[in-house]
């Protein structure tokens, strides 16, 4: 099974307060701590587990700048066989369709049986997997939380729907799946793996390698553009309790009593 996993480097919201940069209508990115998108880490683990059982290879791919190299190596340290960094000035400002069309070109450079993405990344769009599948003309299933390989041509998957209920499908290969958190328990990155991954070659692909025309991607080809970032209106923001911890707790207990939380 030749498996292609799309991964993205995102600001770690557990580590960072996202702050606006008034100058650029953007967010301040310089001081942010980045890590791999949580969903993608599950996707890579799933790919590694499939390879361990059924053979084949795992290729991790990201569309990013040079900083993307780090997440690729992290996932290679976990056990992915290869990483590909897709990077070109012309790719900057791509919208979802742009990213998906770039990834399509990478998928089509070689032969793959299975493409995995995360369900969603930092901008919460949950779009790349579905766009990519349709562009490739392959079957798609989103929010997948179980994958079973039936044979070289078929898999069975579970999709998670509302209320934690499941839908079970049989899907023909090749296909694209978006992977949900909790599908497995991602392994820790072994130190030995980190050292090994540091020495591996990570090829970089640009527009020319992928046969893409620069106007079709990046800012130029984008139909959806972010114009401005702003903080959600503080309209019905919570009443913030202030003071010493003691004072706060006293106020809180009074409120809880009146609401039935403390009897």
């Amino acid at each position, binding site marked *: 099974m030749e498996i292609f996993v799309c991964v993205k480097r995102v600001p770690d919201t557990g580590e960072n307060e996202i702050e606006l940069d008034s100058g650029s209508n953007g967010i301040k990115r310089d001081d942010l701590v980045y890590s791999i998108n949580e969903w993608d880490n599950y996707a890579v683990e799933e790919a590694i587990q499939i390879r361990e059982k059924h053979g084949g290879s795992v290729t991790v791919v990201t569309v990013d700048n040079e900083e993307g190299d780090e997440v690729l190596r992290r996932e290679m340290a976990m056990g992915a066989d290869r990483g590909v960094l897709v990077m070109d000035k012309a790719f900057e400002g791509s919208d979802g369709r742009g990213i998906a069309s770039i990834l399509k070109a990478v998928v089509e450079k070689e032969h793959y049986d299975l493409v995995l993405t995360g369900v969603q990344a930092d901008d919460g769009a949950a779009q790349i997997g579905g766009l990519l599948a349709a562009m490739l003309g392959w079957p798609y299933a989103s929010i997948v939380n179980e994958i079973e390989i039936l044979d070289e041509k078929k898999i069975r998957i579970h999709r998670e729907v509302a209320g934690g*209920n499941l839908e079970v499908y*049989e899907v023909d290969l090749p296909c694209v799946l978006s992977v949900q958190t909790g599908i497995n328990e991602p392994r820790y990155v072994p130190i030995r793996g980190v050292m090994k991954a540091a020495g591996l070659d990570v090829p970089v692909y640009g527009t020319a390698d992928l046969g893409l025309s620069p106007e079709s991607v990046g800012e130029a080809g984008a139909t959806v553009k972010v114009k401005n970032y702003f903080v959600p209106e503080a309209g019905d923001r919570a009443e913030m309790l202030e003071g010493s911890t003691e004072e706060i707790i006293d106020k809180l207990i009074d409120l809880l009593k009146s609401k039935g939380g403390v009897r």
Partner: protein
Amino acid sequence: MALHIYSYILHNKGVIDDTAFEAISAAGVIDPDASITAVAAGSGLDLDAVCNQASKHYQEVWKIDSEALSYPDAEVIRRLLVRIIPKGDIVLIPHEHFGMDLAPGLSVMLDAAYLSDAVDFGGIGDGRLSAIRQEFNGQVNTQVECDISNGAVITIRPGSFKGDEGQCANGPIVDKTSEAMEGGIPAVGRRFLKFVEAEVGEIDITQSEVLVSVGRGIADEDNLEIAFDLAKVMGGDVSCSRPIVDAKWLEKERQVGNSGKTVKPKVYLALGISGAFQHLAGLKGNPFVVAVNKNPKAPIFQAADVGVIADILDFIPELTDKINEIKR
């Protein structure tokens, strides 16, 4: 020129989903002059009931009726929609598990723009629709512009528009089945096998009046003890956000949210939970929400009645002690 907007209708067992009415409001914000057509797929009497409900409020309802659609498979429905929806128009789809499966691919097949998870819209100017989205689980909003000159498929976040049930339209129901089925049920590489209901666990948080709910801020499985201690003195139960279940620290039946349980307690303590919309989707019945979080910008403070900026690992035990003291 007024837009033509199609709204894909979700339904279950003959009952139309609230999002069908939210889409009418959303369409009105996109373009007050737009004409709106509901599109519903399904089979038999259930579908008829849904179309009747939709026609009261939509100017027109298109139905696709086939035994093969009695369980909706997005891979099939996408291809049927492409056969009937003209290119260049706007299609609205709810941003939930079915819409997430259906919508991105639909935009590719219609050669239209794809705009995901919109929570509000500005106006249209120069062939561009201005929309509001959220990033980083709601920590920041973005204003985006979507070029709709070749049409657009747009998913709408459930609950972000008020359902417009007041408006009476009494639109005609148009049977689009033969047009959609021309050439038969489309062949797809994915076959629906079965639906499996979530397992029923030992504890039922949907009945709890007081929920002490913990998120990733609890940091370690061993720390869960402090949440159980607090729940005990408050006479409530412990619930959680999704990452706690993903890490297998708590049972799935304790998860609140869109892919977990819908709860309706009187009091909900959100401790170290950021407030992602998929989590808040499980919180119903207007409970008194207390949020404790160390990040003053956490979106949970938009959803809570009372907020405390604190480290929960210190705050929870102190609160427990104080309640114990009072009770004694």
